[in-house]
């Protein structure tokens, strides 16, 4: 008697590992790798964000202009008409003797094309390579920044991933109501672009009669105050400092106990800030956040030490959001919402309940039918079927897959399809037995004949599932994964597993010869 054949042993291993590895998923409080529930089942917020990459190119140009301005002022080189237009920086050097100095400086900036006309008028553009690089970096930076912000926000398991060229997927299972959601969205969307800008005191009085174009003539822009759009400021377009030079930002309170944000600049930022304030005593400095002027205090003395503050009637929540955003860095480019799915926790719970009920009810129906139709062979098939479910769950757990609603439907469906391999085999064996072939031969031939059909049928389904995975998004991917794992598992359990069981029981079947009981043959 050969009870322990290799197929049976392998199958026993599959059963053992299947049960062992799927336990953490069934009892979620156990340790170990487990399947996590998708947002549609546990509730939460899923967003697809698009990065406005052209903005990053724009801000790159701005920073180039800023450094040109800083350098020429430091070296006392006189330039005029420093302007940015459609990602082109123009300026005119007044003294031709200083051309070499200017060229030397420009040569240190990477990734730009420099053109000059009449030797003195400079036109600077970014190389295509640099534009692509800047776009690429802006997406990476946005992913990093959003992740940082959400980490500091204190949500459980935020998941931020890049998708495709310029898109970002954000998944927040911790979001349970629309208030939390609003907070999270605000935090993510805040560009947190801090700029310290010089107020053009020479023309400050004319600001209310100027148009955008008039202001541009002088290299200025008109900005509104944050809490009052009627108050306007005329500031130099090119900022003195940007948020990039910030190393820390915190919420503090001023004398009247209003929340403010204090920030600390890095060493080069502190030097630039010190130099600028020393030269501009008596003038105003505008603190600009995301294109709005928050305050424009007078410069009374040189400010060393490189720290500053933003005040502007914030609520505490607002102030802490801005501080987080400043700390984790500005977004070089703004993000827009492309897709949003939010599921309340109660709906998720209902979905699980319904799908689980359908899964169990469908499964029981199949079990009863198989045993009724095939007798003992049906019981063997059911063992394979149950093992199949354990294997699907454990493989998903190993890969840390998430179970979504379509994924659950996928499992339900695999149960239906996994029966197929068993049915094909059982039918073959029945057929051969009826032809009067011996039991052991019928089983052997039945399996070998069924194998080709099962393989061909399953491989084609698998190919479709792979395409589904490659071209699907989110939930569809989950569905494709469960189906693929299910197909592979069903081939193991049906071809190897049940064959092993038959081999072990062969002598018993031989001595009983009761085909009705064993294979349900009438």
């Amino acid at each position, binding site marked *: 008697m050969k009870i322990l054949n290799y197929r049976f042993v392998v199958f026993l291993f599959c059963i053992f590992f299947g049960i062992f590895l799927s336990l953490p998923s069934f009892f979620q409080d156990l340790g170990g790798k487990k399947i996590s529930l998708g947002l*549609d089942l546990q509730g939460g917020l899923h967003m*697809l964000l*698009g990065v406005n990459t052209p903005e990053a190119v724009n801000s790159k140009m701005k920073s180039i202009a800023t450094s040109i301005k800083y350098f020429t002022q430091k070296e006392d080189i006189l330039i005029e008409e420093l302007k940015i237009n459609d990602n082109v920086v123009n300026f005119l050097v007044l003294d031709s003797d200083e051309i070499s100095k200017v060229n030397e400086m420009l040569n240190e900036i990477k990734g730009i094309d420099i053109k000059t006309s009449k030797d003195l008028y400079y036109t600077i553009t970014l190389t295509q390579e640099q534009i692509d690089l800047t776009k690429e970096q802006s997406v990476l930076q946005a992913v990093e920044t959003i992740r940082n912000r959400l980490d500091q926000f204190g949500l459980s398991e935020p998941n931020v991933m890049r998708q495709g060229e310029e898109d970002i997927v954000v998944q927040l299972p911790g979001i349970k109501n*629309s208030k939390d959601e*609003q907070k999270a969205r*605000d935090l993510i*969307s805040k560009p947190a672009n801090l700029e310290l800008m010089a107020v053009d005191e020479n023309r400050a009085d004319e600001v209310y009669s100027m148009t955008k174009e008039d202001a541009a003539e002088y290299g200025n822009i008109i900005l509104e105050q944050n809490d009052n759009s009627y108050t306007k400021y005329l500031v130099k377009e090119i900022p003195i400092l940007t948020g990039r030079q910030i190393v820390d930002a915190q919420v503090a309170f001023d004398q009247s106990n209003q929340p403010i944000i204090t920030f600390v600049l890095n060493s080069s930022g502190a030097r630039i800030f010190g130099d600028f304030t020393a030269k501009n005593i008596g003038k105003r400095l505008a603190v600009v956040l995301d294109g709005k002027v928050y305050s424009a205090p007078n410069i009374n003395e040189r400010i060393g030490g490189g720290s500053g503050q933003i005040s502007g009637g914030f609520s505490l929540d607002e102030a802490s959001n801005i501080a987080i955003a400043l700390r984790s860095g500005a977004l070089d480019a703004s993000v*827009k*919402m*492309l*897709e949003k*799915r*939010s*599921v*309340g926790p*109660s*709906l998720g719970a209902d*979905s699980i*309940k*319904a*799908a689980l009920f*359908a899964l169990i*009810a*469908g*499964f029981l*129906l*199949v079990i009863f*039918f*198989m045993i009724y139709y095939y007798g003992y062979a049906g019981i063997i098939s059911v063992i394979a079927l149950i093992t199949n479910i354990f294997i699907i769950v454990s493989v998903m757990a190993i890969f840390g897959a998430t179970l979504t*609603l*379509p994924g659950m*439907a996928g499992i339900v469906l695999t149960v*239906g*399809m996994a*029966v197929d391999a068993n*049915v094909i085999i059982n*039918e073959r064996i029945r057929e051969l037995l*009826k032809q009067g072939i011996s039991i052991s031969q019928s089983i052997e031939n039945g399996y070998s004949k069924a194998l080709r*059909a099962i393989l*061909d*049928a399953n*491989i*084609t*389904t698998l*190919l*479709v*599932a792979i*395409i*589904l995975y*490659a*071209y*699907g*998004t*989110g*939930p*569809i991917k989950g*569905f*494709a994964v469960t*189906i693929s794992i299910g197909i592979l598992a069903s081939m193991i359990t049906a071809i190897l597993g049940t064959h092993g069981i038959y081999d072990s029981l062969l002598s018993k079947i031989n001595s009983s010869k009761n085909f009705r009981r064993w294979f*349900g043959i009438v």
Partner: protein
Amino acid sequence: MEIFKNNKTYEFMSKRISFLSLSSFLIIFSLVLIFTKGLNFGIDFSGGTLIQIKYIQEAPIKKIRAILNSNKDYKNSSMSQFGSKEEIVIRIAKSSQDLSVDIGDKITALLKSTGNFEVRRVDMVGPKVGNQLRQTGLIALFLSLIVILIYVSFRFEVRFAIASIIALLHDVIIALGMICLFRIEVNLDILAAILTILGYSLNDTIIVFDRIREGITTQKESNLEKLVNMCVSKTLSRTTLTSLTTFFVVVTLFLFGGEIINGFAFTLLVGVIVGTYSSIFIAASFLVQLKFSIKDFKDKEALKLKRKKEKDDMRAMYEQGRI
């Protein structure tokens, strides 16, 4: 228990013209539906916003409609009951790109006066994503067909591949027709269901074709119609049985799986029924209709065998050091 006696051969092929006519009728009917009524694309593909709300009492649909219709931004929104009387779904063609503004929040603010409710789901899909999803969906469908065509041609023969693709298209078109007829909202999950039908129906068809392939090499029968009848009859109990078990599962999913997967389950239900029908009556009929030649196939197989034998002989000679 046995449903079909294994040794009985049913005369499927002599009635194939009536089956093919029935199928043609269904396909034309479906196509007319698809092109006149059109598919009811949900927000996944058309873009827009969907809000699912559950009230404590019965949802006051009339009141909600009146409130939303009086607001110019949401004039063309539609609303319907979802699963129960307490629950409704509001669909709005608009979507917002701005992260700080949320249509869902705006609607809930507008509906404050209608009673106590809980917002259970807000889905927003921008137009760009919708287009992208539609495109990738079509690519997936198209690629699947090509891969199937290649694989089946490789494992069987070109005519088997063509017949199986026709059977597939048959199933998919009729399923789409039913989706049209019952105004099922077409979202990503329906696409997944359609692709599952593809896999399922193919599975069924290939099992039948495998029998025919086997029959050609093992049976002496040289009349294609008789051979096909024999082989389809032999797989009949398997086809019915598998369909039945899958049917059990899909029906429970349809009846008890919850409103959200209802459309998905419905599509599968149609797919299982049509898929079973097509693999028994349609796929093999097309094989006969395409004038598949047993003799050619046998000759080809024989040639393959001969080549393989020659190769083996050469190898044997080589190993014995004769070349």
